[in-house]
Each structure stands twice: as C-alpha cells, then as structure tokens.
C-alpha cells in the first residue's frame, strides 16, 4: 500500500466522498438541501479533476476543472435556486419508495456497479482506475434518484448529478475527454437545464403542479 502516492490517495478519498454525497442526495427530503449537496458534489468533482491534472500534467484538465467549478458549483445551483424561488416550490420531496428501502436498493446497485466496473478497470492503464467503479455507482445512484422521485426538480438534479458521475468516470478511466467533447457536454447540460426550466413553467401552468404523475394521463377528462 506504500506504492500509492498522496495524490492518488486524495483522489480515492474524493471518490469516496462523491459516493457518500450520491447517497446523501438519495436520502435527502428537502429540495434546497438537495441543491446544496449537488453543489458540493460539483466541488468535489472539480477538486479531483484538478488533482488529476496536477498529477498527470494534462493542462486541458485544469480547464475542465475550472469549467466544472463555474458551471456546477456556481451557475447551475444558482439557476436551480432561482427556479425554485420563481416556482415557489420549497416543499419536502416525496419519494415513491421510503428512504431506508431506497438506501438498500442503492447498496445493491453499488455492488452491481463495482462488479460491472471491475473487468473494465482491469483494461484501463491509469492509476486512478479503481475509482471507475465508484463513478459507475454514482451514475446508477443518480438513475435511481430520477426513478424514485415524483417531482420534476429532484429529477432534474438527478440528471445533473448523473452527468457528474459520467464526468468522474471519464477523468478516472482516461484522464479526461478531449476538450471539444467536454465543452459540448457542458453546454448541453446548461442548455438542457434552461429548456427544462421552461418546461417546468409550462407543466405547472397546465397542471397546477410539478408532479410528473399528471403527465401519464393522455386525456384531459377521464
């Protein structure tokens, strides 16, 4: 274990923090805390990207770390906060399944993701390949969050945090994607966020609620 350098230890630690935050988001009842957790996750992600950049001398990773910091710690949480204020939806998030059960499903998913990532990680040549499993696990936990939440805003936060997981997978498995791809994804997320924001207003205008259950009905009158 002495062979692991300090920066790899730090990345392992941040990976563990990311996993913990994914679980915290899964368990969180309040939508405002959910946004704070999302911002914290973005911060941890930016830190780990910066550490990978420092350790491997890949200057473009500094750019993606900075981009992550601005976008995921600054802009997106701010947009979400503003949206919540404008929609006036500070309710407690209600899940489809109760929280301890969701956590147990989450643990099963983590085991599944670790097993899934193991052969892939064997093929990767980076020092940080062990964290690939954690990245997979956070993607799956975000999926779970999107599935178990009934309201629109937590689902969008789940979508955004899934992107966090993917980004982490990319940095840990291949030391990051090409800059063009990263810029593209970042812009996609931002634009997606804006469009979803417009959707929220439309949905609420139509149904007087952000509960997506209403979208399942095809007719207006049953």
């Amino acid at each position, binding site marked *: *274990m*002495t062979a*692991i350098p300090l920066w790899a*230890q*730090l990345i*392992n*630690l941040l*990976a*563990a*923090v990311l*996993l*913990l935050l994914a*679980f915290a988001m899964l*368990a969180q009842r309040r939508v405002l805390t959910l946004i704070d957790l999302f911002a914290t996750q973005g911060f941890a992600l930016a830190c780990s990207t910066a550490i990978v950049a420092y350790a491997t001398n890949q200057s473009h990773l500094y750019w993606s770390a900075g981009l992550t910091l601005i976008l995921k710690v600054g802009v997106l949480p701010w947009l979400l906060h503003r949206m919540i204020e404008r929609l006036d939806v500070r309710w407690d998030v209600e899940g489809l399944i109760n*929280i*301890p059960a969701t*956590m147990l499903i*989450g*643990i099963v998913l*983590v*085991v599944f993701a*670790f097993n899934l990532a193991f052969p892939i990680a064997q093929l990767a040549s980076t020092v940080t390949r*062990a*964290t690939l*499993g*954690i990245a997979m696990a956070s993607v799956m936990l975000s999926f779970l969050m999107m599935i178990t939440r009934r309201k629109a805003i937590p689902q969008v936060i789940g979508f955004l945090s899934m992107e966090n997981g993917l980004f982490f997978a990319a940095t840990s498995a291949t030391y990051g994607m090409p800059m063009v791809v990263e810029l593209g994804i970042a812009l996609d997320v931002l634009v997606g966020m804006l469009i979803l924001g417009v959707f929220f207003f439309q949905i609420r205008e139509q149904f007087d609620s952000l509960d997506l259950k209403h979208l399942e009905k095809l007719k207006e009158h049953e």
Partner: protein
Amino acid sequence: MTATGFLSQVLQLAIALALAPLLLGWVNQCRAWLSNRSAPPLLLPYRMIRKLFHKDAVVAQNASAVFRITPYIVFGSMALAAAIVPSLATDVPFAHAADAIALVGLFALARVFIALAAMDIGTAFGSIGARREMFIGFLAEPALLMVLFTASLISGSTALPTIVETLAHRDIAIYPSLAFAGVAFTMVSLAENARIPIDNPATHLELTMIHEAMILEYSARHLALIEWASALKLFNYSCIGLALFVPFGIAEVGADWVAILKAAPVLVAKLAVGGLALALIETLSAKLRIFRAPEFLGTAFLLAVLGMLVTQLLGA
C-alpha cells in the same frame, strides 16, 4: 501466557472497572459545562454506586430467578468484554478467548438478559423498554458487525489484537473506508449506550425512555451493578473505537512492563478527549423520535457497508 501478559490483563481489567464510572462522570460534567449548567461532581457515579450497595434490595413478589441473576450476568459480560477489548496491551490472554464477532455476541447476551428481566415483572414500562431495546439492538448490531468487518478486511483477521496491531503499524495513508466506519461506529455507539439521539440517559420521561424503563424495578445492589455495567459498556465501546481508529500508544506483543504502564496515561488521555467529543455530540443533537431510529441506524449501516465496499474496491 507470559507474566507480562498476565500483568497487563489484570491491570487492564482493573483500570476498566475503576475508570468506567469516572468516564461517565466526566461525560456528564462536560455535558453540564456545554449547556451552561453547574456541573455535578466528577465522582458522583462512584458515590451513587456506593450508596446503592449499602441499601437493602427490594424485589417484586412475582420476580423470578431471571430477574435476580440478570444484574450479575450483565455485569459479568461487560467485565469480560472489558478484559477482551485490547485497550492497554494487545498481548492479553483473554483477547484470544473471543474475536470481534464473539464480542458482539457478548453484548447481545447482556442485552437479551436485561430485556428478559425487564419483562419478568410484568409492568408496562418494563415491557415497553424491553421492546424498544430489542428494536434498537437489532438495527444496531448489523451496523456494528459491518464496522468490525471493515477493520477485519484491512487487517485480514477478526481477532482484535491482530486488528489493532495491523492498524497501528500501517503507513500514514488516507483510508476513506476507515472514515466511513468511524462515523458509522460513532452512530452505533450512541444508540447502543442509550445516548442522546436515540435515548436520553438523564431523564425518566415515560414516553421516551428506553434503558431507564427497563431498570425501573431494580434497587440497591442490583441497580448498582446495572449502573456500573452500563458505565462499563460505555467504557468498552469507547475502547473499541479507540482500538480501531486511534490504535496508537497501545502496548504490543513483546512489550515490557514500562511500555504497558506507559500505555495507561495514553488511554486515559484518549478517553478524556473521547468523552468530551461524546458530550459535544450529545449537546449538539436533539433526541430523535423512536420511529426515526431506523433511519438513523440505517444510515449507520449504510456507511459501514460503504466502508466495506470501498475497502474492496480501492484497497484502502
């Protein structure tokens, strides 16, 4: 069994029996300071135990033998656990009598008997307390086992002395798994020792009490033994925590007398800090409703399992 081993065993047990009420008194004093009250004397638990030993025991008419022997069994298992947990030295003869899993079993034995005794008299409070205690216990035990398994995975053994020695000799490295396990262990200890987020040790409020409800019928020497045993339980849990997460300063195999004697002040200092931390947690948190306890302990279990999974994946 070497002479040093025997000495350290005797010394460790004596320290545990003698210092356990002091630890309780220290925690109570810190709590009083933190909430701006004038503190009770540090030696109050000793006086309490002495006073109780001098009284005449009153036992309910319909009490069976279980009720009478339970204080001795509870005290006995806690004292045995204090002999097993390597708090002072790892080369203690008793430590090989039971590994981490058997230790959890020992705590479970005490729990089962105290719950049986609580139901024995047939009062409503006793039954309620017993049911709640078992409810908390069955949630806390798996989490505790997972914490111990995390440490076992890192050191490759479930024997506590081996775990302590491996962890004390590791290189200075960041272990995310141990951080998870540490938080989980803290939560489990709070629940198991009837501390604040789950139970309030300072109140006899009927609706919320768990531990106090179970021992309402006890008096005099029986009560003294049970109070002493719960102080010992807190001491044991603190020592397990110290052994797993700050195992430095514990005398190791082959250590001479001086090293063992040196380990004692280190232990006292660590316990003092630990007690202050416990008081701080208790002051900062509010008591949970009993039906929120599964969520609290579920989180502890989750953290412990995550710690174990992270150990497997990252090897750290």
